[in-house]
């Protein structure tokens, strides 16, 4: 790892991100949602935590996860990744540089979204920690898929389920309104619901479940990384 090389990749990918319409427009998604929600109701009452976390889920899945996945897949598809690997940049430099770009973009988009909506949430240490775990989860999944696929077209095969299951989790309450339905019992264990539970005051159990998801995502990305590196050496 080398800071100079990470920054070189970061600068390059920041330009790529902002010049790629498909990626750049994802930034607008959470902002747009925040704008819509803030117009609903009487405009005075604070947005329910569920909607705030839906926006977080949209930002993490559509910008953080999809962004890095698409950037990796494109490098693979266009054969530019080979050029980077044949330079002094290591795979770690490349992944960190790209992660910084999508993290920055996600943070910018969420900040704008939070400013737009009346999210009178109190951010406890536990809920901030949980937010970071959730971000790591999405980043890891995005990197792992990015290391596995070789074209931008195949990313959507992974991306749609990731967005619907992990990103838009609270939507399930509209599709399946009965709280005791087995689907709802299962979705209660999905990561985003842990953040909502932590926000509502629970800590230990949801934090453990969320940590388990993040750990699983680390195992997934490590597996994908190892596999990729051994394929490189054939």
């Amino acid at each position, binding site marked *: 790892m080398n800071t100079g090389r990470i920054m070189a990749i970061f600068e*390059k990918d920041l330009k790529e991100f902002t*010049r790629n319409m498909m990626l750049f427009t994802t930034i607008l998604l959470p902002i747009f949602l925040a704008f819509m929600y803030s117009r609903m109701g009487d405009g005075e009452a604070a947005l329910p935590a569920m909607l705030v976390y839906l926006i977080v889920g949209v930002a993490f899945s559509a910008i953080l996860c999809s962004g890095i996945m698409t950037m990796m897949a494109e490098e693979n598809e266009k054969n530019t990744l080979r050029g980077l690997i044949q330079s002094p940049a290591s795979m770690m430099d490349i992944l960190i540089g790209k992660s910084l770009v999508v993290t920055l973009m996600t943070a910018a988009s969420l900040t704008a979204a939070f400013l737009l909506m009346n999210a009178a949430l109190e951010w406890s240490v536990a809920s901030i920690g949980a937010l970071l775990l959730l971000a790591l989860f999405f980043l890891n999944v995005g990197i792992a898929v990015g290391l596995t696929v070789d074209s931008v077209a195949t990313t959507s095969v992974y991306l749609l389920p990731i967005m619907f299951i992990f990103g838009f989790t609270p939507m399930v309450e509209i599709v399946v309104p009965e709280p005791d339905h087995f689907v709802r019992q299962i979705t209660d264990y999905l990561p985003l619901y842990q953040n909502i539970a932590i926000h509502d005051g629970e800590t230990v159990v949801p934090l453990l479940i969320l940590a388990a998801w993040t750990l699983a995502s680390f195992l997934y990305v490590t597996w994908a990384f190892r596999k990729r590196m051994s394929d490189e050496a054939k």
Partner: protein
Amino acid sequence: MKSVISVEGLKKQFDNEEALKDISFEVGKGEIFGLLGPSGSGKTTTIKILTGELEPSGGLVEVLGYQHGAFKKSEYVRSLGILSDNSSLYERLTVKDNLALFRKLYNTEQSKVDQVLKDVGLEKHINKRVKDLSKGMKQRILLCKAVLHEPAVLFLDEPTSALDPVTTDSIHDMLLKIKARGTTIMLTTHNMDEATVLCDTVAFLNEGIIIDNGSPDALRQSYKTNDMHITYDDGRTKQISLSPENKVQLEAALFDTNVVNMKSDYPTLGEVFKKVTGKELV
């Protein structure tokens, strides 16, 4: 003098085919070495092994004193310049941004970038996006990218295929300049004229085996015959050996108005290739 690239008994087995059967050659410092062969003969595979992208299945491979097991080392990677058959640039970014990335990755000075851009005559285009460049321009930028850190060895896989003659010439000029700085260059090509102009040594590769190698002139010399080929205006051809007993016949042909062409048999490199493999090189 010790060779910069030394390959001995190199083999490469893919799942269901033996792409390289027995490859041996040496390249000295500052030389341009050309690997010539038809499509599928194993040129790209050989280059990929030397640049560490593929592992050999057998044989000895050494470049700059590094054995193939050390080809992933950063000092090795740093001393190579590579232009592969599918190298590409970031299309959305400008020429300047593309080269800036690699300048920073290799930690070299801006003056080197300015110099190589000037060498290929593209200094006026630095602010253009790569997607707006012509194919020949892109190839020249890729070459700039491959050499801006002044590598000790440069690997080029078909550097001029599908380019127009003017661009091809400018790439040749650039390569000769790079060679003059002492860089060792290994390239692959289908183009015999290119090999004749550029290479100090060439090797003919066919179906994973090197059939012959040497300097282009020496190869042409060794396959020349003593025959004079004569073509008549009605399409007839005749071969006469250049020996004293045929003096009268040869002189007669010289003054025969029906003769449209007389040519000694000094084969081009392409003709030599055809002689040894029975294949055309296209």
